[in-house]
């Protein structure tokens, strides 16, 4: 028996088995459960009622569309603010840039709720009204590092001779940027977009804190339903969000196969 056991683990590929079992139980099955709950009612019979409820519920639809809008604005703001920062960082002297990059990543390691509350405190301090503006600014604060880092990574790995070649061939600085640098940094840009868009579109607690419960995002709707015991409807809303995330990830993989080069780790 023991011999059989050790012979089994002699083969190193069998070492993957415990984790495969773990993944099946804690990753695959929970996702299947979301699908199962989404298409059933409280008694467990198959139904489309949860999705019909979402479609016929203007408040839910509005929140959904509004959340996507806020997420897009946040992502674009992060891109506009973050790209120049990443560009400057990738061009500065090695030693200073290392420290600077660290300074930009550091806030990511502070608990997101503490960071958000600190932002609320800052807005309070400056008498900035807590509302839509605060929501967008607060989320830009929270997620800007996630935009800067991947872009910085791809820019830093870029071959400088390509830029020189463009210059030698007569491109002006604007053309060099538009035709050479920006296209080459696309993997970083797409992974930055995904890394900012996904948490902003799915956020729940942050929005409540930044707007004093005045603005509701889709994440909050999902959380409320789950908390109030409406598991089936909550699961249907989760599934809708999951599909949105899946589409975002697919889009980023499609637009660039090497997107993981810009990954954050």
């Amino acid at each position: 028996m023991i011999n059989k056991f050790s012979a089994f683990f002699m083969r190193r590929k069998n070492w993957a088995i415990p984790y495969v079992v773990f993944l099946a139980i804690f990753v695959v099955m929970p996702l299947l459960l979301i699908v199962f709950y989404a298409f059933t009612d409280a008694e467990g019979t198959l139904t489309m009622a949860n999705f019909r409820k979402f479609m016929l519920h203007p408040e839910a639809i509005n929140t959904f569309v509004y959340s996507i809008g806020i997420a897009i604005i946040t992502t674009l703001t992060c891109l506009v603010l973050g790209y120049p920062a990443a560009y400057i960082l990738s061009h500065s002297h090695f030693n200073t840039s290392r420290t600077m990059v660290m300074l930009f990543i550091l806030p990511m390691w502070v608990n997101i709720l503490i960071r958000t509350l600190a932002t609320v405190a800052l807005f309070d301090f400056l008498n900035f009204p807590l509302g839509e503006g605060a929501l967008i600014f607060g989320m830009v604060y929270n997620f800007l590092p996630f935009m800067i880092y991947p872009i910085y990574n791809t820019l830093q790995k870029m071959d400088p001779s390509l830029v020189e070649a463009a210059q030698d061939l007569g491109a002006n600085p604007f053309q060099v940027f538009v035709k050479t640098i920006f296209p080459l940094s696309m993997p970083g840009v797409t992974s930055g977009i995904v890394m900012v868009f996904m948490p902003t579109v799915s956020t729940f607690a942050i929005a409540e804190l930044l707007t004093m419960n005045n603005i509701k995002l889709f994440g909050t709707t999902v959380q409320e339903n789950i908390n109030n015991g409406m598991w089936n409807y909550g699961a249907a809303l989760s599934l809708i969000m999951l599909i949105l995330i899946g589409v975002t990830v697919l889009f980023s993989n499609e637009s660039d196969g090497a997107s993981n080069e810009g990954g954050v780790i």
Partner: protein
Amino acid sequence: MAKAYLWLLLVLLYAPILIIMIFSFTEAKVLGNWTGFSTKLYSSLFAGNVQHSLISALWNTFAIAMLAATISTLLGSIAAIGIFNLRSGARQTINFVNAIPMMNADIITGISLFLLFVSFGISQGFTTVVLAHITFCTPYVVLSVMPRLKKMNQNVYEAALDLGATPFQALHKVIFPEIRPGMISGFILAFTLSIDDFAVTIFTIGNEGLETLSTFIYADARKGGLTPELRPLSTIIFVTVLVLLIVINKRAEKQKTDKIR
């Protein structure tokens, strides 16, 4: 000009944290009121008499992170060795499933695990939080160990077996030393991810009164006010992380220069 832009962004990014730090040195209940310099919040944080629940939340956070990071490092490292030796088809499938918790939104991971636990009638508490944290930490460990395996000479393990080592000895003496750096960075990553997590925790923590730092802050903030002791606590955490990161960075730099020599 360019430098000025970077500094402006940094000032903006750090302004909230600085506000918290500055107002940790005053007694006022409400953040933003300056009632004179005082270290009373620090002493009452350490006396622990005012905020017993805050201290226990802190302790829970640490215990959960320690357990989750240790288990995910072991599970993920063994899994990485296994996955590395699989046929490419099976490997790609596992890598895809492995990527799901990293790509997925935290709230979805949380809800999916919540549904798993309620469907099987598992009461939620400390264990379920640890299990949930292992779920989203292990993929990062697998990813940080995998490159070390790729770099390693594949024949050394076989050689050890040919020379009479048992698979366990070969693991211990050959593979383990090679992948150790990946395991360490995987552990650190898992630990910080676990400490920082809010969305997955809130769905798997149940309602038995168990609190982590994140859920404590969340509950506190919803009540309206923020416990004043959170200010010195955040300051301490921030400074600790800052010092740790500087030390890690200096160490990495030193290793690099040592290697060049």
